[in-house]
């Protein structure tokens, strides 16, 4: 045996040393009077057995710890190669576990752990309004609030106002709509960035009638302007108005990051009365904490200020302020929780994989007991035997780790494709150095988790007992069997936890899909169009243009009907009026009993196009004109709230939006979920477009063909009215609904995947236990059958054992699941975390699979030929 870590060099030197010694000894004998030959012989004789010496040396040397480890690894590798099937199962098991973790960890790291790309981003905060009644702490803010925050010099350095918007670039062949931002002149100072080219806004440019200027994002500059450094000063048509490019931002220099160009917000100078209204929540804010001030300190101070304002102002009931750190604002609590839950689930899968491999190693350890006993008898220490076993599990987990990382690389790509677009940072997720370090950590943990029990067991084997027992094959159902049973019970219990979680999400998503959105989304195409105010200045012009557009679209072949509305169902739309709807002749109710509603402006034909039923009264018609009586349609929920036990038709109500204008209710429409499927049914009100014209509407086009196939003709129909209109946000109603479901669906898919993996792994575990029991008891089975036991009895005897394991696993698993499913409670919709159906389904599935896994080896055992079995003994 040649050492790995000491080369032939050392061997040669040792030979030289021995040779020199013998030479010196021979010289001495020659000096004492022998002939050279005699001297040499005498020297060799006196020196003794050179070969023996070399052997001793080799043995001693190979005892070096590193040497021993190298040997153990090579020995382990040989063992693994000798049983490729076994090895593949073990390696794949670990690979799946590690892949699941590396994939989810990549997501967690990209979405949750990666710091934001802005300078001193930990000082960036997003102040929001808390609307208690709406259950949100992310509401937009009033300009008066921003002024109050600016006064808090001790807490906040600078506070910027901005608004997400969109811009139609109307020059060139095809008008294009891009997501954009309107921001005041301090916005870029809050961001802490310098411009890449040109400059940012001046205070003059932020005045209400300031010059038309804009700043390009790095993305738009490279995409549309070919990264031309001479772009500064160029005039570009936005909504038909020439606008000067004054600057180009750096990559990551704009937030929200999808915005492609920024125009001034126009809040400079003296704020007008409308901007000073405390309930005019139309802005968003971005602020930078003063150095040394924590977000908690700032929050505490602002809470006090908000309370003072709430006392003073009657329209501030149930609102306060909340400072979000920017990263907690970007990734909301639900996405955060989802990712942690998924990482937890992935860790459970890995744990099951470890238990499984531990079990496999144990089974093999038992088969190798005799070999170990021999080694122990020859003097191998316990530590050395344990290390041998650990070396084997280290090899398995290292191989599994490599395979796992490769799987994770593909898995992650698939996941990014499947994931909803609106999880920020998800596209940046990749298998990087940190993921690799994490995976190496997992491998080490796996080595210990999977290898420790078998190693300790092997080390405990006493040579005497093992020799004693080695001759008896019908021995020890208890040997290692108990430990293995415990492991399988653990595995089943963990699988139950995962399966229950998966079942809960399946039920929850099932519930969401059965929700009636209130519209019929099939075959509906939606397109957003904004009329530029420069060319469509007054209400009649706007109303007339949209009438002509929808009329042109209705003539497109394949189109059944077309209409337009200011907001789309499920798409998160609607101008939300959190203010009083007053019934004519009634005193204003106290603030806490206000009736709030989502406000939509619609063209005639909207209810028909969306198939929203009119339950009472009528829909809008072309007779509802600007000059005729003001009308409104309310949703059923709204009608019930405001007019319990009487018909709302003919009643007159007004809202803040219309100030002192009373509108007559002419119809009651079916309830529509405007914000999301899983959200509450909001109250909705609809107003005809002729009586309240908006320059940006979504076309709603019902087709008898595939809606997207009609797009080209719809586009030319729109352009037949105005060649410079951009068709933005083209999507079908079905796509809008799918997007709304994407996040719960994805987490459901992953948990189901993990649950099924857990199920498969524990099935393998149960199979292994029973199959081992069969080999262990082959002789017993043979005897029983020879004595006339029915085949069924034999099967039953073996399956009974598996059933006992499954029952124990079930018991522990259900207890653990009861404790753990609470963590996903917030991800569930209309399903309790203790939902008996989900628990029952998971339990039945597991028991079914466990029994099936047990039946296969049991059935095989029952087919053994008793004579052959006995003879083979």
């Amino acid at each position, binding site marked *: *045996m040649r050492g790995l870590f000491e080369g032939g060099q050392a061997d040669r030197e040792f030979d030289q040393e*021995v040779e020199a010694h013998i030479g010196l000894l021979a010289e001495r004998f020659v000096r004492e009077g022998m002939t050279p030959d005699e001297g040499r012989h005498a020297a060799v004789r006196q020196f*003794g057995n050179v070969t023996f*010496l070399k052997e001793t040396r080799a*043995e001693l040397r190979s*005892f070096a710890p590193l040497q021993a480890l190298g040997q153990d690894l090579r020995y382990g590798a040989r063992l693994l190669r000798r049983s490729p099937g076994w090895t593949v199962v073990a390696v794949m098991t670990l690979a799946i576990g590690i892949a699941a973790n590396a994939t989810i960890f990549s997501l967690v790291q990209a979405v949750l752990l990666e710091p934001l790309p802005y300078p001193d981003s930990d000082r960036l905060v997003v102040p929001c309004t808390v609307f208690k009644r709406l259950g949100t702490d992310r509401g937009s803010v009033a300009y008066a609030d921003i002024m109050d925050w600016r006064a808090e010099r001790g807490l906040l350095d600078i506070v910027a106002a901005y608004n997400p918007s969109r811009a139609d670039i109307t020059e060139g062949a095809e008008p294009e709509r891009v997501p954009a931002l309107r921001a005041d002149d301090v916005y870029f100072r809050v961001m802490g960035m310098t411009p890449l080219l040109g400059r940012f806004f001046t205070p003059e440019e932020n005045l209400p009638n300031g010059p038309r200027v804009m700043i390009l994002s790095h993305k738009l500059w490279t995409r549309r302007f070919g990264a031309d450094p001479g772009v500064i000063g160029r005039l570009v048509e936005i909504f038909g108005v020439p606008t000067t490019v004054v600057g180009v931002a750096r990559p990551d220099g704009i937030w929200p990051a999808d915005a492609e160009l920024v125009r001034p917000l126009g809040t400079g100078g003296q704020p007008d009365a409308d901007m000073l209204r405390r309930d005019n929540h139309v802005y968003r804010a971005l602020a930078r904490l003063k150095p040394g001030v924590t977000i908690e300190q700032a929050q505490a101070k602002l809470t006090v200020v908000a309370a003072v304002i709430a006392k003073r102002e009657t329209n501030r009931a149930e609102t306060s302020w909340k400072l979000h750190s920017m990263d907690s604002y970007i990734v909301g609590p639900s996405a955060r929780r989802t990712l942690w839950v998924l990482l937890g689930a992935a860790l459970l899968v890995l744990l099951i994989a470890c238990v499984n491999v531990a079990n496999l190693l144990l089974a093999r350890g038992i088969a190798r007991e005799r070999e170990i006993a*021999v*080694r122990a008898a*020859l*003097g191998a220490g316990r530590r050395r035997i344990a290390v041998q076993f650990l070396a084997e599990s280290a090899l398995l987990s290292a191989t599994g780790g490599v395979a796992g990382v490769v799987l994770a690389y593909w898995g992650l790509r698939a996941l990014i494709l499947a994931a909803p677009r609106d999880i920020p940072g998800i596209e940046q997720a990749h298998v990087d150095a940190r993921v690799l370090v994490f995976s190496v950590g997992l491998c080490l943990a796996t080595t210990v988790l999977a290898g420790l029990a078998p190693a300790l067991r092997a080390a405990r084997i006493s040579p005497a007992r093992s020799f004693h027992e080695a001759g008896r094959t019908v021995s020890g159902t208890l040997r290692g069997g108990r430990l293995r049973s415990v492991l399988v019970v653990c595995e089943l219990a963990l699988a139950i936890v995962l399966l229950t979680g998966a079942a809960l999400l399946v039920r929850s998503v099932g519930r969401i899909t059965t929700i009636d959105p209130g519209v019929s989304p099939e075959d509906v195409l939606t397109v957003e169009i904004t009329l530029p105010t420069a060319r469509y200045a007054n209400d009649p012009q706007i109303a007339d243009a949209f009438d002509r557009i929808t009329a042109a679209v209705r003539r497109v072949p394949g189109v059944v009907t077309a209409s337009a509305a200011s907001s789309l169902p499920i798409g998160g739309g609607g101008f939300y009026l959190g203010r009083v709807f007053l019934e004519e002749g009634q005193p204003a109710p106290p603030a806490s009993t206000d009736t709030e509603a989502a406000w939509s402006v619609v063209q005639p034909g909207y209810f028909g196009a969306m198939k929203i039923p009119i339950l009472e009264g009528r829909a809008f018609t072309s007779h509802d004109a600007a000059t005729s009586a003001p009308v409104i349609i309310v949703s059923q929920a709204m009608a019930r709230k405001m007019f319990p036990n009487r018909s709302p038709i003919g009643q007159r109500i007004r809202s803040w939006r219309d100030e002192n204008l009373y509108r007559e209710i002419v119809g009651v429409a079916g309830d529509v979920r405007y914000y999301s499927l899983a959200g509450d049914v909001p109250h909705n009100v609809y107003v005809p477009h002729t009586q309240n014209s908006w320059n940006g509407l979504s076309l709603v086009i019902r087709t008898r063909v595939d809606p997207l196939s009609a797009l080209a003709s719809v586009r030319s129909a729109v352009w037949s009215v105005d060649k410079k209109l951009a068709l933005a946000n083209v999507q079908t109603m079905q796509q809008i609904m799918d997007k709304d479901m994407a996040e719960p669906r994805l987490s459901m898919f992953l948990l189901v995947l993990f649950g099924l993996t857990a199920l498969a792994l524990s099935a393998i575990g149960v199979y292994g236990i029973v199959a081992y029991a069969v080999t262990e008891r082959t002789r017993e089975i043979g005897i029983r059958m020879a004595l006339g036991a029915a085949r069924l009895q034999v099967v039953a005897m073996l399956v009974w054992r598996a059933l006992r394991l499954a029952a124990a696993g079930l018991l522990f698993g259900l207890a653990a699941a009861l404790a753990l499913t609470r963590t996903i409670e917030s991800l569930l919709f209309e399903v309790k975390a203790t939902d008996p159906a989900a628990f029952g389904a998971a339990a039945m599935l597991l028991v079914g699979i466990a029994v099936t896994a047990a039946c296969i080896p049991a059935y095989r055992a029952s087919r053994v030929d008793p004579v052959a079995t006995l003879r083979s003994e």
Partner: protein
Amino acid sequence: MTIGVPESKKSDVLQGTLDLMVLKTLEALGPLHGYGLARRLEQLSRDVLRLNEGTVYTSLLRLQQQGWIASAWGVSENNRKARFYSITRRGRKQLVTETENWERISGVITRLLQLAPGGDF
């Protein structure tokens, strides 16, 4: 593969004695090469112990393995390249322990051998 190489503690008395002798010689005389060591042991034992000189190397290897002696290449008195062995700090400590052990055991054996028939200590 190596099966059950006995650890040094389990070694027989004679082997232990040889290790002790080597350690003591190296402590007393400083670095020596194998041949020199064999000669010193021969002189000291006044030819009572006729060693298989190769066993000196077994001992040297074992002691080196334990870290009790270290070795380095040097030039011998007659200008040959030779490996010189010297005692390490751990080796000195070990020597103290081994010496105490030896003295205890040899004391017991001496007293045992002085035991007169029928007499008592």
